[in-house]
């Protein structure tokens, strides 16, 4: 069919006219789906759900104005079921803000907390106004502090698609959008923004990571922290952002264009540019609680819309607090399930997001009364949702009241988990705890005790995350130092399994400093040679410190921002991490799909993983032993890949016998954390051959990584050797 009048006819609806006038605006009954505000021909369709409300009013504001320009009550005929829908004609979507006023019973014991005096934020808001500029107090009155806006959903993606990198190949880099480039040393044109992050993509490519996990980017209020820094007296922030206000809206305060309401476009451009660089985008999402707190908290959205639907309530109508923040979202209520699903579908489809990390995900497994469900509907739905099929789903498999599901989170063959046991096991090994070698071996080989049926990629391995010590602080502090958080150092985790190498905090002693440097390299080498998905925290690759603060959620400043001077000052460490990442990606033996051996081909040299001690093939699991030596091996039918890693947390040097290789192969040294840079690490593919092939020494508190290469008399790299290390596969 050609264009012209026929096409034009089809473009025009027969219901694009007003049937009513309300408060001076031409309106008609709207369409109940989709929820939220959507552009339709000639106007905007508003749809909001509340099953217990007795009356709903649409509140319209001129952009930036404190008081409403109009309030439009929904007539009874505009309600279908529990959904109030209205199309308002003649609105300029760029010039208005909107909210709702909901009437209904105030009966806390029955779970109802309606308050028609409050102006409420639409849970489906695609844009939020009220915090467009980071750290700037709202110009709006307390009666209506946050409003929704209407976003464009079209974008010039230029063919961009989610990358669909295989999970086993991921190397996740956890970052805070603002903290990543806000420091003056970042040198970007728009510090602390999505656009600033785009300017640092070359750095990420150089480092070699292929997935960035962004700490919360859904709209939150960084100024809702009432505490002050007891040391310096400064106002504290809610810097991390685990206090969501608008789940569908990218944070405007992270956008250079936020003041113009263009954060959606800027965010999408960031995703497009990251994808173009081969980097996936995973979002840290917070569905376990909202920013409304408990009974004492503000009524901003859910509480006033339908409190007993959105929150888990005790029999007497108080808030369950499984999140530690005052309230708990009622994730397995059918309406809330739909909300979560709608939200993630929106981010996957509209923003091309590659995956999600769920904060305190164990809460997603609780029923409305808080009991733990064996088959939680929302977790199952997310696992099998058609739109989310290719998205990575990563659970922080615990909550704030002790439900710890690492290894038994309901996974439906889809979910991965932050492996808390990996973190603890590696930390304890690094500090030379006794009786930990077996634990470390289990963690390095993909935690088969936890994920045998799911494969190593179910385990997101990490030693540090945003929550806790940085890696530099892990080797510099025995105790947390959170005085600046305004809680008398009572906040933050007490179980850090850290060791300060002899001096608490900064040290001038070159011996202490060298030991710390080595311990950091030990950590990275173990992390990046373990089976499972490694995750590192932005800044750890250049030695970022938070001065011993292990709960820096409230600091928007030097303590939290990445100081880019460190890239120059600690270039040796950066090089070590860069090489270790490249090494991992070069070696399929380190990125196995299954825990058990692949097909038993006669040409195989070794099992997929084998354990060794000071004698080859003779691991020592005795409690006093502090050496773990692993050999990882893969064979795809043509190429052999073999990596040997020995980690020694003993304070004496150990001599290890190396597994004997076939006659045409020889051990080459990739890394020795005891060696001074640049000899601590070698570019993958250019590793020098070991002079002695039968034994190697592993220095005190250090780690060694070897790779099997062809026999050569010199240590010069020969390009044909690359055949041993196939390049990383990628899916369509």
């Amino acid at each position, binding site marked *: 069919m050609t264009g012209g009048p026929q096409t034009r006819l089809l473009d025009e609806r027969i219901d694009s006219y007003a049937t009513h006038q309300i408060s001076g605006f031409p309106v008609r009954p709207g369409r109940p789906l989709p929820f939220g505000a959507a552009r339709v021909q000639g106007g905007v369709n508003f749809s909001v759900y509340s099953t217990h409300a007795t009356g709903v009013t649409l509140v319209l504001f001129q952009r930036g104005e404190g008081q409403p320009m109009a309030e439009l009550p929904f007539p009874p005929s505009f309600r279908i079921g529990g959904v109030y829908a209205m199309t308002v004609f003649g609105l300029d979507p760029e010039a208005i803000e909107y909210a709702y006023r909901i009437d209904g019973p105030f009966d806390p014991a029955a779970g109802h907390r309606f308050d028609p005096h409050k102006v409420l934020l639409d849970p489906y808001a695609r844009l939020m106004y009220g915090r467009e500029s980071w750290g700037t107090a709202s110009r709006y009155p307390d009666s209506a502090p946050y409003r929704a806006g209407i976003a*464009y959903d079209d974008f*010039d993606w230029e063919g961009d698609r989610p990358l669909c990198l295989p999970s086993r190949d991921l190397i996740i880099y956890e970052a805070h959008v603002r903290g990543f480039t806000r420091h003056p040393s970042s040198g970007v044109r728009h510090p602390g923004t999505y656009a600033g992050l785009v300017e640092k993509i070359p750095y990420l490519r150089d480092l070699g990571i292929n997935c960035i996990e962004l700490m919360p980017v859904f709209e939150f209020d960084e100024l809702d922290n009432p505490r002050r820094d007891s040391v310096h007296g400064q106002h504290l922030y809610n810097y991390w952002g685990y206090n969501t206000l608008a789940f569908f809206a990218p944070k405007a305060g992270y*956008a250079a264009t936020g003041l113009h*309401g*263009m954060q959606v*476009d800027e965010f999408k451009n960031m995703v497009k*540019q990251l994808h173009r660089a081969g980097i996936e985008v995973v979002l840290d999402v917070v569905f376990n609680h909202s920013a409304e707190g408990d009974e004492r908290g503000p009524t901003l959205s859910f509480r006033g819309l339908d409190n007993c639907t959105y929150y888990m309530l005790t029999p007497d109508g108080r808030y369950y607090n499984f999140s530690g923040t005052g309230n708990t979202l009622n994730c397995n209520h059918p309406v809330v399930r739909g909300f979560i699903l709608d939200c993630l579908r929106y981010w996957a489809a509209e923003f091309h997001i590659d995956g999600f990390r769920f904060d305190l995900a164990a809460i997603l497994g609780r029923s409305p009364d808080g009991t733990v469900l064996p088959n939680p509907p929302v977790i199952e739905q997310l696992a099998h949702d058609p739109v989310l099929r290719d998205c990575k789903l990563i659970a922080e498999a615990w909550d704030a009241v002790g439900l710890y599901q690492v290894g038994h989170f309901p996974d439906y063959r889809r979910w991965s988990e932050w492996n808390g046991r990996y973190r603890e096991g590696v930390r304890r090994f690094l500090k030379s705890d006794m009786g930990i070698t077996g634990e470390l071996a289990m963690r390095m080989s993909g935690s088969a005790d936890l994920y045998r049926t799911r494969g190593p990629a179910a385990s997101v391995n990490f030693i540090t995350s945003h929550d806790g010590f940085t890696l530099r602080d892990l080797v510099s502090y025995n105790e947390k130092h959170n005085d600046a958080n305004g809680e008398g150092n009572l906040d933050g985790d007490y179980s850090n399994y850290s060791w300060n190498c002899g001096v608490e905090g900064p040290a001038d002693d070159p011996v202490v400093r060298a030991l710390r440097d080595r311990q950091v390299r030990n950590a990275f080498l173990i992390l990046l040679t373990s089976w499972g998905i490694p995750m590192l925290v932005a800044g750890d690759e250049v030695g970022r410190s938070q001065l011993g603060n292990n709960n820096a959620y409230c600091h928007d400043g030097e303590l939290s921002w990445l100081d880019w001077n460190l890239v120059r000052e600690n270039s040796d460490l950066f090089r070590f991490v860069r090489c270790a990442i490249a090494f991992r990606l070069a070696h399929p033996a380190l990125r196995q799909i299954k825990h058990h051996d692949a097909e038993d081909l006669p040409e195989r040299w070794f099992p997929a993983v084998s354990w060794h001690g000071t004698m080859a093939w003779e691991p020592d699991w005795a409690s006093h032993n502090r050496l773990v030596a692993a050999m990882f091996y893969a064979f795809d039918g043509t190429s052999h890949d073999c990596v040997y890693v020995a980690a020694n947390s003993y304070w004496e040097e150990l001599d290890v016998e190396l597994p004997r290789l076939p006659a045409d192969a020889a051990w080459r040294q990739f890394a020795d954390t005891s060696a001074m840079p640049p000899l601590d690490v070698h570019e993958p593919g250019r590793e020098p051959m070991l002079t002695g092939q039968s034994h190697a020494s592993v220095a005190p508190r250090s780690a060694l990584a070897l790779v099997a290469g062809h026999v050569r008399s010199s240590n010069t790299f020969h390009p044909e050797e690359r055949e041993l290390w196939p390049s990383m596969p990628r899916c369509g």
Partner: protein
Amino acid sequence: MAFNATLRVSEETATVRLVGELDVSSAPRFNDLIAEAAGYKLSRLVMLADELTYMSSAGLRCLVFAHQKMPPGVEIMFLGAQPDVAETIKLTGFDRSIVLQEASER
């Protein structure tokens, strides 16, 4: 500030002069001119933006609209953009549809 746009076609070059604020209310006027220009045999579409003071989200989309309306091979130039306008275009990634030249570059 009110928006005004004019189209002039000379040989194989269409020139659209933009004045004022390009937003949701003025975007249709701009798009109509682009559609009109697309009816000519062109090698170049030039948008003169030195008097364009503001560009909203709707305005940004006009650039993509122009890119889509013009036949392949037609060079699309956005000339003399004021710094704020040019920056907005770049930050949101809409500069990939056009050749963008800022006022200071002239």
